[in-house]
Structure formats: structure tokens, C-alpha cells
């Protein structure tokens, strides 16, 4: 499977990955509406963590051992056998936050309005995830996980 790799040495923390992620998950697909008008507010599935000059664009890694799946109280999280992605069944998610506590990246996002967890699906309907495609500095890389790593 493919993953998003980060090249933090050229990431300047501009946050465009977050902007485009939020846009992607908006209903209007309009930047201004996505940020100012839509309710419930569309949420970015990724997060940019910064400290000093280091900035990291963090998203779900669809980990092999995925602690979120085991921690999920309702069975809403599972691995899609066809894509190997960790997916959430929003029907069954109650937004309890146990996955957020279990995840080493603390990345499962809770949509307070919908009372659901939302997560990255690597933009399955796009050739390249929008965060990667719109990174102005090529600090994000969408690449096949190397054989040696799997």
C-alpha cells in the first residue's frame, strides 16, 4: 500500500495541507464557505504540529498493528481487506475518543457536532491525496511502502 511520507526538513508549516484537507471534506467544496459558513464545520483529518522550526504534517498511518482497531469499543474501526486502510464505520462510531487515547499520533479527530470520529482515508477517490498534491514545498511524498519495510 501507499503511504504519505513527510520530509520535515523542507516543511515550513504553512498549513496548506490542512486547508486542502478541510476543503476536501466540506460539502460545498468552496474554501470560503468551508471555513466560514458550513455547519457542521468540515474538519481536517490531518494536523500540523509545530515546535520551534520543526513542523510535522501528521495524519493516520494506517499502522500494521493499528492500536485504534483493538481499542475501538464498538467495532466501528476495522481494516478494509481490499485497500489495507484503517476505516471507520460512521454508523457505528459513537465518538467516545478511546481511539484518540490509543493512537501514538493522537490523530483520531472527534467531530463534536456529529459526535463521531473522523479520519484520513488517503483520499481514495483521488489519484494523490489532496494534502500531498497541494503541498507547495514538496514536503509530502505519496509513495509505495518499500518492500524492505513491510
Amino acid at each position, binding site marked *: 500500500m501507499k503511504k504519505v511520507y513527510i520530509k520535515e526538513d523542507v516543511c515550513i508549516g504553512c498549513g496548506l495541507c490542512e486547508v486542502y484537507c478541510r476543503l476536501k471534506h466540506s460539502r460545498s467544496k468552496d474554501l470560503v464557505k468551508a471555513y466560514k459558513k458550513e455547519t457542521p464545520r468540515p474538519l481536517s483529518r490531518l494536523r500540523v504540529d509545530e515546535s520551534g522550526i520543526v513542523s*510535522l504534517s501528521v495524519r493516520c*498511518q494506517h499502522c500494521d498493528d493499528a492500536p485504534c482497531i483493538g481499542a475501538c469499543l464498538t467495532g466501528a474501526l476495522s481494516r478494509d481487506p481490499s485497500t489495507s486502510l484503517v476505516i471507520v464505520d460512521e*454508523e457505528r462510531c459513537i*465518538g467516545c475518543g478511546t481511539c484518540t*487515547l490509543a493512537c501514538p499520533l493522537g490523530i483520531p479527530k*472527534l467531530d463534536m457536532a456529529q459526535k463521531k470520529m473522523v479520519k484520513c482515508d488517503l483520499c481514495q477517490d483521488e489519484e494523490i491525496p489532496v494534502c500531498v498534491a497541494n503541498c507547495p514545498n514538496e514536503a509530502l511524498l505519496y*509513495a509505495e511502502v518499500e518492500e524492505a519495510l513491510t
Partner: protein
Amino acid sequence: MVATRKIKYLIIGNSAGGIGAAEAIREVDKAGTITIVSDEPYPTYSRPLISEYLAHPYPVEKMAYRQPDFYEKNKIKTLLGEKVIQVNPDKRTVKLESGTTLAWQKLLLATGGTPIFPEMEGNQLKGVFTFNRLDDSRAIDGFLNQYRNRVRAVVIGGGLIGVSVTEALLRRGIEVTIVEMKDWILNTILDEEAAGFEVQALAQTGTNIITGHTAEKINSYLPGEVSGVTLDDGRVFPCQMAVIAIGVRPRLEVVAESGIKINRGIVVDRRMATSAPDIYACGDAAEAFDFVYGVNRLTPVWPNAYEGGRVAGLNMAGTQTEYQGGTAMNALKYFGVYIASAGLVTPPDDSYETLINRYNGIYKKVIIKKGKLAGMVFAGDIEKSGIVYNLMKDRVDVSKFKEALVADDFGLASLPESVWRDWLAGAPPEGVPVITSIEKPEELVIGD
């Protein structure tokens, strides 16, 4: 009657631990026979959802922990509504209440927990409930449906189960009084300040919280029915129903005379193996390794049950695996207030260091011993709590960046690269074409 063919993997328990084990076994052994036996007549369901079920409207189908075709797809035979009454490690059998004896090669005890039910006058009255499984929720639902007028309830015990049932009852329009023996509700999983978030939310619902007292007896005016609860100080709270939620203990009846080593729960090693050969245990019934305390303890939470079950299953199927350990961990969202906690919530002595940050109605606290995290409480905002939890789980020395853990702007970037690099995808592979072509940089014009 003794089944002639031995079941390769027999699992007692159909909840998180049992399912975790069955899934792990099937990853390794596609064909070996698996049988799950449970005294509950339902396909696996999410136990934490029994409060949603009680709160209404919540269809029972939505409580399913796995897809309807789960058992069939994984070739798992189920014996649901069948109670195991005895385990015989020497003969490698279990005896069912129905009279059947099952023979096994590998056995998993994922029997879970059972509510502690105190000797108390009135505890047999109609209108007295526990709140641990779907049938409890159904019983309370059926009871409430008989009433047209406003019902009052006393919940005895202000722990997770007590607060869960309170939230559900409130959503049904029931007036609730919680009686908690200790000084604050949720005291085993929250410190007093974080519990204050819940107390405030509960106060807004009109819920009455009594702390520092116990219930002495459940009163009855009409024969067989609850009329109120009397506390240890003589106060009486009139009610039509009482829920006993003072705690849960491991369900150990089936192993009582088996000779399997028991402390507070079934003692297991890091492979989740019990003292008897080929018998494993996990979940609320087991006493497994706690990475905060460094010893075996009961940590009856869902994620640990699943993970322990998974490790047990892998070992049962012949793949040597060690349980990294678990610790008490809970994420709460009662009344829309998000709280996450793990490990210790109050330092037991002054050899621990406590760091606290409060801002914008958010409360973050970590407890550190000898450079390593021993506990955490995040209230009001639990995003990124997982980073701290995993630092604790991986026993990372946090001395050099401990202040950052509770800071407003805490994130992965606050940690040394050696920590976050492993958690992220790793270093980007070499030679992968980037999205846009790399253009020759423009020449800088200096001067004119």
C-alpha cells in the same frame, strides 16, 4: 455426553477478549476448529453500548461488535446461551450447564467480570438492577416502560458503570441520585479536579450526587417493590428503582476448583498463559501485566481485553507473542465532556512528580516517576492524549521534555525525532518522483 472430537480452540466468552483471540487465531490458523461458548444468547455486541440502548432510541442491531457474517466467515462455531460450569485442566474438558462436555486442545478463559452485589436488605426487590450486560439494560427498559409518571432512581456507586447508567436514565427523563462512598465520583479513574468536570455537567441535569456515604438498605413499602434507599447517616431517598454499581469482579466460578492459579483474577504470564498447560486467560477475568505498576493487575477495560485476547490467540495458534502490557485507560464523553485518563491519576507518594496545566477550561496533568510517565489525565480536550499514553506505554524517558507534555501547543514536534520518526511512516524512500518536477532555482540577482 462427551463430544468425541476435540475442539482445537475453545473460547469461553464472546466479548472483546474472546473475539480478539478468535481473530488472531484465524490470522495464523485458517482451518483449526474454533468454538466460542457464552452464556449470553446474543452474537458479540459492544458492551459499552448498553447505556445507549437504555437511553433510546438505539436499535440492538447497531450494537453488533462485528458484522453479521463474522462467525460464518471465520468458520467459528458458537454455543450461545450455554453456560460453562466447570473447567477440567487434566481431562482437557469443560462441562456445560446443559450437561454436555466439550473436549479441547487449547482453552481461553475470557469469562469477563460480574457486578459486585452486596448483602443488603432489599437487594432482591423488583426494581433493583445491576448494569453490566445487555439483559440488564433490557430489564431496566422493561421496568421503566411500566411507568407513566416520572420515575426516580438511586444509583449506588459513582464509578464508570454508575455514571453510564445515570446518563442513560437522565436521557429517559428519570431523576437520579448517585450515592458514592468515596470523596468524589469516578475516583478510580479521575482525580478530583477532572471529576469536577463531570460533577458540573451532572449538576446541570439536576442530578443529586451524595459523596462520602454508602447505602444501608433498600426500602420497600408495597410488597416486593422499591420505595427508597436509606443511607448510612439515616437519610432516605424515595425512589422506584435502584441500580447497584459498586464495582465489578472477575468471573471465576468456572475455574474455582480447577487448580488454576488465581489471585484477584486468573494469573497469566506475558503470553497470557495461565498456570495450567494450554489454558489461557484475558480480559476482565485475568490479572495481566500492567506496564505502569510493573506487576500483574486487574485492568478491566475493553481495549486491554481485546489486546490480551489477541496475544492469547496468537500464542494458542503457535505464534509466540508477548503482551506489552496494559494499564487502566479510559476515554469518557458523558454529557459531551471529553476526558481521557490512564495509569495513576493521583500520585500515591511524594516520589512522583506531577505537572499540571490549566487553560481555556482545559486541564492536563501528567504524573512522572524516575523519568517515566506513570499517569495522565486530560479533561476538556483529549486530542493528542494518545501521544502521551503511548509515551507511557513504551516507557520512554520523558525527563528532557516533560513540561511540553501538558503545554497548550503540545504535539509530536515537541518530542525528539527518535520518538516521532518511528511512529510516522519513517524516512521517505529515496528516488521516488515528487509530484511536480524540480525546477532549476532562479538565479538570485544581487545588486544591479
